[in-house]
């Protein structure tokens, strides 16, 4: 078997790779970018301890967000919980910065934005847009509170364009790559399906051929004899042969149906023939049954045909799970023992005669 990867797994693997890349990006930014800025501007802060604490809160939010996204697309509650914590931490850090140089020493805006990208990446794009807008508004709000000058506004717009622009670009890029991975997976899926169809067609063709060969051996000679008049339809033996061949034909047809391997299905086909002869046939199963391989099924259905053909007025067929396999039993008023093979293809057949009733059981074990 060639290992065609299930497509959902394949496209999922790509998506996970993109997620890991974003996690690295965000963690890297927070450690090197934000952390570096924080240490570099250390003397400028009113309280370095507060800034450090906010940086740690942001780091924890990023860690929690990473765990969330590596587990799959987060639900809105945990995703937004992380985002709101990042927003609060960055606003607090901005508010505690010295008024005149808030933007110059601000490490938090970028980190908060990337945290939002991390947790909202695979959710609707508008959610990320709302978050980034809220983040920008909060930073601008702090600046307005501190007293907004024209140069500050220009600086704000520059940082907005650079930082938020990069975040939006990364988010859009990952969305595009997700789409491409989905398409690649769909292509692989259709190829896999085509290969499977071809393989199924081959199996069906082989099964048809086998059935045709089986008919050549048994049914065709009988039909030929009937046509030539050498077999007399009035002869009970010829009638029995006809009944058996009719049952076999039905069974072979049943084998080709949509439910390959259904023993019950095949037994039903055999029962139909007996019913036409006026034999009442019950078929009952007890519980879920294990699948039985083809050759063993054939031994069982051959036994069924032999017993049903000998049945005079009634027959009961039951299927039940037994140990590691299946027990198919027949109770019929045959009047006498029926010639059955004792064993074949892993199937053991036993029978017992009680008055006019025959009990026979075919057991197949997987081990």
């Amino acid at each position, binding site marked *: 078997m060639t290992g065609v990867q299930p497509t959902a797994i394949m496209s999922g693997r790509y998506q996970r790779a993109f997620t890991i890349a974003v996690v690295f990006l965000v963690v890297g930014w927070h450690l090197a970018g934000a952390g570096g800025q924080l240490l570099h501007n250390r003397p400028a802060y009113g309280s370095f301890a507060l800034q450090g604490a906010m940086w740690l809160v942001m780091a924890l939010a990023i860690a929690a967000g990473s765990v969330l996204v590596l587990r799959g697309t987060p639900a809105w509650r945990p995703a937004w919980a992380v985002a709101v914590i990042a927003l609060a931490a960055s606003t607090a850090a901005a508010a505690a910065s010295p008024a005149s140089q808030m933007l110059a020493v601000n490490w938090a805006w970028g980190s908060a934005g990337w945290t939002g990208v991390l947790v909202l990446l695979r959710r609707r794009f508008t959610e990320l847009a709302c978050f980034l807008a809220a983040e920008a508004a909060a930073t601008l709000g702090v600046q307005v509170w501190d007293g907004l000058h024209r140069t500050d506004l220009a600086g704000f717009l520059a940082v907005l364009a650079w930082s938020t622009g990069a975040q939006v670009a990364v988010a859009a890029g990952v969305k595009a790559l997700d789409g491409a991975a989905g398409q690649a997976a769909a292509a692989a899926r259709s190829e896999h399906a085509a290969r499977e169809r071809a393989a199924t067609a081959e199996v069906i063709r082989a099964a048809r051929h086998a059935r045709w060969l089986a008919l050549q051996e048994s049914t065709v000679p009988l039909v030929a004899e009937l046509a030539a008049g050498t077999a007399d339809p009035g002869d009970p033996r010829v009638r029995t042969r006809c009944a058996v061949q009719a049952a076999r034909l039905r069974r072979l047809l049943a084998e080709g149906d949509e439910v390959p391997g259904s023993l019950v299905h095949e037994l039903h086909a055999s029962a139909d023939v007996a019913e036409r002869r006026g034999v009442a046939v*019950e078929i*009952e199963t*007890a*519980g*879920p049954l294990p699948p039985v391989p083809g050759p063993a099924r054939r031994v069982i259905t051959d036994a069924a045909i032999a017993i049903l053909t000998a049945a005079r007025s009634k027959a*009961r067929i*039951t299927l*039940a*799970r*037994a140990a590691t396999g299946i*027990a198919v*039993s027949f*109770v019929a008023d045959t009047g006498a023992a029926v010639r059955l093979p004792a064993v074949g293809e892993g199937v053991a057949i036993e029978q*017992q005669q*009680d008055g006019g*009733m025959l*009990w026979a*059981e075919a057991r197949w074990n997987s081990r």
Partner: protein
Amino acid sequence: MEQPVTVAIIEDHPVVTEGVASWIRSDPGRRVRLVQTARELTGLHAMPREPADVVILDLELSGELVTGEIPGLVAAGYRVVAFSGHSDPAIVMETLDNGAHAYVSKEEGRDHLVEAVLAAAADRPYVTRSQARAILADERPARPALSEQERQALLLWFQGMSKASVGRRMSISENTVRQYISRARAKYAATGRTAPSKDALLARAIEDGVIKPGEIVPYRSFARAGPGRSHPPGHPGPLNDPGHPSPPDLPPQR
């Protein structure tokens, strides 16, 4: 002669009611007397002409499955024999778990219904082939543990052999076959929800020597946490019921 067992039929199809009544009439010993018929459950409560020992209940009345009504009937003191066209093992199991004494499918009615009613009236187990099938098909984790012999007897019975043939096949007496099958049924009475009918069946099984008290400790699944099987107040369990002391000499069970 003993008093005949009184029976009520709850069945929404008059033709079926008529058929059941004719089976009851044609019983040579006249062991069962039909006292009431109703087309729905409310009819049973409406006309208390004469108390019925056993209720033959069609499980589907006016297109609705009424297995959920069985506990109410059992609590009212009726013994219930379910008679249904449904032979789905899950429904059979639910019916028995709800406290019905026996389950007879409509195909089995002619041969088994009167006997099942008589067994129910005596609180004795009666296992039809469809019940055997449901037990064999049972794969619930909380199912009782059956012995290999009990399972084999149930399987051969389900397959369609007469009990005498099952005995010959297993090289045991027909009576022992009945004992194995009854014991399997009694084990089921010891599991699931509690019902006075189950307790009565178990007590009778112990009295008859079908099962020893030690054998009916129900399989306890970890899903069934708690102190164990509880009995409703005023209804002592069969194990400590002073009215039914277990006989000192149980017949040998091989």
